[in-house]
């Protein structure tokens, strides 16, 4: 990972940050514009951090770049105060669990087998599961309410059950930070709320949560801090009330939007209006 040392004086790393980036720039080969440009952000330890933005604004690229899955051309990243060059994949997988947007399995696989893959970074090449591993797996399955599906094949599950299984696999890694890319995109209200409440409980227990989502209202309710991306740049960053402003959202989403205070939840409510 070729990173240049161009750290500006005003953005020093906060040693208590779980994820940190400064002046991050990612430009995919042959792309007309960079996917991320001058992105600086800090995800404090134990916080619930939500990343918002229109399609193609660089949310998923940010996740990948933070964990060194795509190379960056400028800027720096750190995970728990250490740059990516200090991490190997195995050590990183013990600290950071990821639920990507989607995955497809090549062969039939059961729920238990998929969740057990979360123990990969803890096991030797031919070592079998220790009692600690078994406990982590069953605990993760209970937390995500998939323990009753253990022997079911993934192909027989509903979309919500598959997502809960994937979250369970990330939890089985016993990570200190959990990164999720639109985990509730295809879920109904109940399943979505179940996952979000699980994430909130995990954050309350000290885990850092980094959630990419399109649901502005829910992000405002669950997250401590929001990051709004617009075409690879930071449009706004801060507490929900600071980020979810009418003018900002109208500009970023290119759509008339009204923001009011929701008396039921006490957080901003975002309502898209019609164009005319």
């Amino acid at each position, binding site marked *: 990972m070729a990173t240049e040392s161009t750290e500006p004086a005003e953005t020093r790393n906060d040693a208590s940050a779980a994820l940190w980036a400064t002046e991050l720039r990612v430009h995919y080969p042959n792309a007309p514009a960079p996917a991320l440009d001058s992105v600086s952000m800090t995800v404090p330890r134990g916080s619930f951090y939500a990343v918002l933005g229109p399609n193609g604004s660089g949310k998923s690229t940010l996740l990948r770049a933070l964990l060194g899955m795509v190379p960056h051309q400028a800027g720096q990243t750190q995970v728990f105060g250490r740059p990516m060059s200090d991490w*190997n994949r195995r050590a990183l997988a013990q600290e950071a669990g990821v639920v990507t947007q989607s*995955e497809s399995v*090549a062969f039939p*696989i059961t729920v238990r*087998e998929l969740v057990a893959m979360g123990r990969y970074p803890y*096991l030797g*090449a*031919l070592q079998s599961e220790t009692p600690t591993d078994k406990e982590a797996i069953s605990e993760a399955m209970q937390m995500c309410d998939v323990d009753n599906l253990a022997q079911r*094949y993934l192909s027989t599950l509903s979309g919500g059950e*598959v997502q809960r299984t994937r979250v369970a696999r990330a939890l089985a890694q016993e990570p200190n930070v959990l990164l999720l890319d639109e985990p509730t995109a295809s879920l109904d209200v109940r399943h979505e709320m179940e996952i979000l409440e699980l994430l909130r409980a995990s954050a309350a227990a000290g885990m850092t949560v980094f959630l990419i989502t399109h649901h502005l209202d829910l992000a405002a309710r669950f997250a401590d801090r929001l990051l709004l991306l617009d075409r690879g740049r930071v449009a706004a960053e801060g507490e929900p009330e600071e980020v979810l402003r009418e003018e900002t959202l109208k500009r970023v989403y290119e759509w008339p939007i009204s923001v009011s205070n929701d008396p039921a939840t006490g957080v901003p409510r975002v309502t898209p209006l019609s164009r005319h």
Partner: protein
Amino acid sequence: MKPITWAAVLGLAVVLVFLLSILVGEADLTPGQVFAALLGEGDINDRRIVVGLRAPRAVMAILVGGGLSLSGAVFQALLRNPLAEPYILGISGGAATGAVLALTLGLAASLSWALPAAAFAGALVAIFLVLRVAATADDRVDVRVLLLAGVVVGAFFTACMAFVLSISDARTVRSAVLWMMGSLVGSDWRTVWMVTLYSIPAVIALVGLARPLNLLAIGEETAGYLGADVERVKRMAYVLASLLTAAGVAATGVIGFVGLIVPHSIRLLVGADYRVLLPLAFLAGAVFLMLADIAARTVLPPTEVPIGVITAFVGVPLFLLLLRRSVGAGAGTGVGA
């Protein structure tokens, strides 16, 4: 049945089919004569047949059948395609070109080791070319490019081989065609040792990669986030499985379908955990090829049917059955949001 039970059953089957394999043959030997010969007693000619011909042939079937089946399973994980097989990346084309050159230039007639050596060299050239083409600028291996590169390199070598054959005499063409259909005839202890030397380290190393191969089956990005060094695993798996295939092709010619249907069937029996699948696929491939060889020797005496014909006759219907089955079950592979 539990995996350990399957291992015991297949292990026992290897031993029993091995014994059957050395009991059956053109020369009419009684079981008593065969066992006496095995123990180094009895008639010198019996010993020559049993220890010098039948035993190395059966051991070769174990090595090549097990190796093809194991490398087929590895290619299926690597290419994330349950219908991949060991020859899919052009190894058979490279090996066949090498073999045909050795036959045409008359090297094979004068030197017994020239044909397997030339076939192995041809396979290595194909492996090298495919890997070079599939390596991207930032030194990653794109498995989709790997697949296309393999198919194209294979097609190129097939053209080379066809060209060489077109300027060869009829006898050479016949030898080449027979070689391409595969045969365990002429397996002697020396070739057995050479194949052992190449295969066994590759088999052990590939079984050691079982856990990261499991992760590859759910996708490279996720595998990376779960702690696997994806690029290293892909490269090692490709090179080792290719060497294993190349050793088999060099010794016995192109024997199809073993690497496709055996791992596929084992997956249906025990699931897709490669820690279990790889060793069982090796054992089952060994049994399958020994049985195919027995059939090749006994269905049409005194003629030997090429073993590749037998494996295709068994493999094609079985493959179609598995294909129908997986279509019926919806293949069960597309999940995620």
